[in-house]
């Protein structure tokens, strides 16, 4: 089991640590609801040292990346980033990631912890002469600082280092990387620094009033905003068009990308399933990953929840599920099977919040 450079700090804070993607990570400190609310109302800090970081550079790297990723790399200017996906030949999602252009032929990628090895193997297999691929995941610790007070607190801590614009990246003279991104739907940034230095940032942020938050709150925060989680809402059996991520797929860009043919076909003929948002319509146990989604009668299975939780902000159960397009329209009544009963739910417009 891999350990974060912040491991001893988590233990001192009384975090509950559980395995996640091969890492022993904090699921919660005080409790998911309190942590969730801190991020919505003020400021939270998450350890994201488990996430993967790649640096790719060299002549022709822009065109090479554009032939692998779904978004249009050529839209980026220096210091800008974009959400994008790596697909297999069948158009299924291998990983979703953020790509940052640091310079004309130099890109920083932040990928999911569970996919580091698979992404690396995929990219290396497609490597071209002149392009240098570096997996730097073991060298970086990371923090996600999220909440409406992010900017204010950062400007107090480091008045000399301005935060980049939305989705942007900035590498400080000391070698820390700041990215104006996150996974909660609140303003905030992600900070990467060496394993030796990341702990000090964590200490400074806690001292400035940020609440330590675990992966439990990270999950409820992202679900309320309908941000997909790879391995749950995204997988190699579903395309980004089915997942509702068409905005991040550029079918007319200069370089054709892996999986494009399948997506063009879906664009032409329509998709056979859509990732829908569902909300419980009455008092019920929290819906959870893997629960059966049935029609209104409760008799016929339509799918399985890919994500589900009580929404701390809304006080009601929410989830996501791949449904046939005719069942995926907002307002469609459904039921969710929980243990030996079914509970009413309906399809709602994304996001929940």
């Amino acid at each position, binding site marked *: 089991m891999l350990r974060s450079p912040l491991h001893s700090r988590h233990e001192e804070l009384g975090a509950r640590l559980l395995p996640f993607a091969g890492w022993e990570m904090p699921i919660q400190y005080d409790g*998911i609801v309190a942590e969730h609310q801190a991020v919505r109302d003020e400021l939270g800090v998450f350890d994201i040292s488990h996430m993967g970081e790649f640096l790719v550079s060299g002549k022709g790297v822009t065109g090479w990346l554009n032939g692998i990723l779904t978004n249009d790399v050529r839209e980026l200017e220096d210091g800008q980033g974009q959400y994008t996906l790596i697909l297999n030949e069948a158009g299924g999602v291998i990983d979703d990631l953020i790509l940052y252009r640091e310079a004309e032929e130099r890109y920083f990628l932040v990928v999911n912890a569970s996919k580091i090895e698979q992404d690396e193997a995929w990219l290396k297999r497609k490597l071209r002469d002149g392009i240098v691929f570096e997996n730097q995941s073991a060298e970086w610790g990371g923090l996600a600082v999220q909440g409406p007070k992010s900017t204010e607190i950062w400007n107090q801590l480091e008045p000399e280092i301005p935060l980049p614009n939305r989705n942007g990246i900035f590498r400080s003279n000391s070698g820390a990387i700041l990215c104006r991104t996150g996974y909660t739907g609140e303003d905030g940034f992600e900070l990467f620094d060496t394993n030796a230095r990341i702990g000090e940032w964590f200490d400074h942020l806690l001292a400035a009033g940020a609440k330590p938050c675990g992966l439990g709150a990270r999950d409820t925060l992202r679900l309320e905003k309908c941000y997909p989680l790879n391995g749950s809402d995204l997988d190699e059996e579903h395309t980004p068009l089915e997942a509702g991520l068409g905005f991040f797929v550029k079918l007319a860009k200069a370089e054709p990308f892996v999986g494009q043919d399948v997506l063009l076909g879906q664009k032409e003929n329509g998709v056979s399933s859509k990732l829908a948002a569902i909300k419980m319509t009455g*008092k019920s*146990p929290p819906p959870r990953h893997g629960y059966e989604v049935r029609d209104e009668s409760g008799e016929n299975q339509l799918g399985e929840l890919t994500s589900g*939780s009580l929404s*701390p902000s809304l006080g009601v159960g929410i989830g996501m599920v791949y449904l046939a397009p005719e069942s995926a329209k907002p307002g469609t009544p459904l039921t969710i099977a929980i243990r030996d009963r079914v509970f009413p739910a309906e399809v709602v417009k994304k996001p929940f919040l």
Partner: protein
Amino acid sequence: MNVPDHLRYADSHEWIDPDSPETATVGISDHAQAELTDVVYMELPEVGRTVTKGEAFAVVESVKAANDIYAPASGEIVEVNEALAEAPEPVNEDPYGAGWLVKIKISDPSELESLHDAGSYREHVS
């Protein structure tokens, strides 16, 4: 951590009041509620159901997970804390008081001897 002296405790962190075997109150311990945090839903059995010691008879749900609750003694469920269906917060706030779950008419009081007393339960969770 609060472990009242007069109660008996199961390995799986339920408590039972041994002093009134006809209507023995059952709940989950302070340790259990602290581990769960944020109880958001309680599923309780019907009055009249007969349970066997060790049988899963209720479900407590936190934001993160659903957890079974096991009967600390065999018997008939004679009363259920209906208020928890609407608002489960007392399970966290007052696990030995307003957060009680059910009352059981104990069928075999000798079963209680295999449960922890307060001292032994404190060791169990330390």
